[in-house]
């Protein structure tokens, strides 16, 4: 009797921990299985490709978001930054693809710098610091192109938006590549480890002599650049630059992906694979709802329910205080 009690409790703990770390993978698997079995025309290459292509920009944004959240921050401005990048792209494509891309990325970096300085130096709370750019950024983007939606005619860019390598679209390759890169950055580099430490206990990190400000600024800059990349990807796919709608509500999708992926908003932890999976989960949910032609109302409710379930499955069951 007394023998069994502990074992069972330990087992339960183990299960809980497994769920906590793999809940999102499980959820993705389940949803995938469901669709493969019950949704018409789901198990087709073209369809699966579509899902990957659509999720690519979300993943790219979510990677930056994961790092920012790792520092116990959040970046609400990513959507607007995407729009700014998208707006600048056609304005400079005239000088060639490189010029256009460089300018767009530079703009992303600049936006990130603004956020980073507000958060790291002026020490404004991330939500509000980045809220400003969320509000103003899109306006700026629209001003840049005075409200016009410009068609993209640059073949290299269009090619990038549609071409495939080894049967997989370039944009998907890009997203995968960036995921690996960010993964290594966080796990293997000095910067990455400092980032996590700062997110966990800022004052201790400062006293340990870590360059807190620099790390924070770099993180937000990276988030900005990644958002810009996503903006370019989305533009290339759309074959047009539409700053008024590109990246709308991406901040929420990205945050959801990160959190559903098991990165706590309290910082001190960055899970890249989880984030990617989180993004995939959201994508699958949306796809499922559209393919079964559910009305918007039901769609939103179901989405809400699944998010809560996914997060609940992997909640931290702390023993209590301390």
């Amino acid at each position, binding site marked *: 009797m007394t023998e069994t009690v502990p074992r069972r409790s330990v087992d339960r703990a183990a299960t809980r921990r497994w769920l906590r770390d793999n809940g999102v993978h499980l959820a993705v698997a389940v949803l995938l299985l469901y669709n493969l079995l019950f*949704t*018409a*025309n*789901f198990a*087709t290459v*073209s*369809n699966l490709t*579509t899902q990957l*292509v*659509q999720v690519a920009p979300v993943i790219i944004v979510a990677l930056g978001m994961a790092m920012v959240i790792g520092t116990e921050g959040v970046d609400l401005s990513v959507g607007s930054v995407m729009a700014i990048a998208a707006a*600048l792209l*056609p*304005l*400079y*494509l*005239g*000088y060639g693809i490189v010029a256009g891309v460089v300018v767009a990325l530079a703009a992303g970096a600049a936006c990130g710098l603004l956020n980073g300085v507000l958060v790291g130096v002026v020490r404004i709370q991330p939500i509000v610091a980045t809220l400003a750019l969320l509000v103003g950024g899109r306006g700026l983007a*629209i001003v840049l192109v*005075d*409200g*016009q*939606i*410009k*068609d*993209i*005619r*640059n073949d290299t860019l269009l090619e990038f938006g*549609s071409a495939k390598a080894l049967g997989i679209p370039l944009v998907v390759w890009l997203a995968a590549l960036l995921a690996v890169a960010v993964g290594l950055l966080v796990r293997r580099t000095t910067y990455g480890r400092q980032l996590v430490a700062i997110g966990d206990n800022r004052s201790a990190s400062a006293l340990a002599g870590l360059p807190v400000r620099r790390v924070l600024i770099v993180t937000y800059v990276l988030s900005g650049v990644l958002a810009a990349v996503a903006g370019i990807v*989305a533009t290339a*796919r*759309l*074959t*047009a630059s*539409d*700053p*008024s*709608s*590109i990246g*709308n509500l991406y901040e929420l999708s990205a945050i959801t992906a990160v959190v559903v992926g098991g990165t706590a908003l309290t910082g001190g932890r960055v899970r890249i694979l989880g984030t990617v999976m989180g993004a995939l989960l959201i994508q699958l949910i*949306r*796809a499922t709802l*559209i*393919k079964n*032609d559910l*009305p*918007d*109302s039901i769609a939103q409710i179901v989405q809400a329910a699944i998010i809560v379930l996914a997060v609940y499955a992997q909640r931290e069951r702390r023993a209590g205080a301390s």
Partner: protein
Amino acid sequence: ARSEDSDTGGGTGAGSGGGEQVVATPSGGAAGPGCTLEAYGAPKLDLKTAVIGFSQSEKEANPFRIAETQSMRDEAAKLGVKKLLVTNANSQLSKQISDIQDMINQGAQALVVAPLNSDGLEPALNAAKAKKIPVLTIDRKINAKACDTYLAFLGSNFVEQGKQAAQQMAKALDGKGKVAILLGSSGNNVTTDRTKGFVDEIEANSPDIEIVAQQTGDFARDKGQSVMEQIIAAQPDITGVYAENDEMALGALVALKSAGKKPGEDVQVVSIDGTRNAVQKVVDGEIYAVVESNPRFGPLSFKTLTDFYAGTSIPADVIISDKLYTKDNAAAEVGSAY
């Protein structure tokens, strides 16, 4: 900055140079007795010395709103109106209410309002009424008493637009096929009306056309694209797409092509608005037809106001006739599209 297309392809839509609006229902007519200065009880006014307020509903971030606001500004300038106040509610109803109240407070003597929603502007309109300030609502009718809460309504009939689109769709598919609808944003009257007009017409007159999907694309191009991609993957055999605005249609075209479909041949696309980019696609034969929804309300609004102050009676509804772009006229008219 050097734009890729220095010739600003599709860039000049904003100008008021394009096609004037044409009134379909003439003065009086079905719209009852009409409204006169006395009936409304507004003070006499000379526009040249007047402060006019224009309350725009959505960001000037899509061709329609840009053209609409621009044509108001241009016409005001043309007539030498003393001051034109312009506000924009950024799609927030509460803001449109305060916008109107603010303009009244700044001494606006007549108001032109592009309502964000058919309901919910009561406090603002009451404030205007209390000060006997005439209010013209444009492009969207509000649920209130004309010549009382507001002066009159100028604009298109969205249900009618949907109906026209349906007829074109029927023609394109000669009465047979599977159609997907790209809805506008949920809860928006325009969405509701354009859907109603289309669906009713199809059900009434084209029993063999089946509506297989209705998903929202939020009036945005990228959403139109991603939703379309999902729909094609799920139902590769659709033959028609009805987009409730041009932007979603343009997004859909991209999706169709990347899925290896030939718009205009495998799939027929019909949409509403008449933006230059869309009309160009009609010329290229990718879109079958575009029902115009003309945003250039400047001239008509100020003409109506001038008439009103000149003592003419204004009908409650001044419905403008919506032009139709098909391969027959598109090439000729694309220049006047916005």
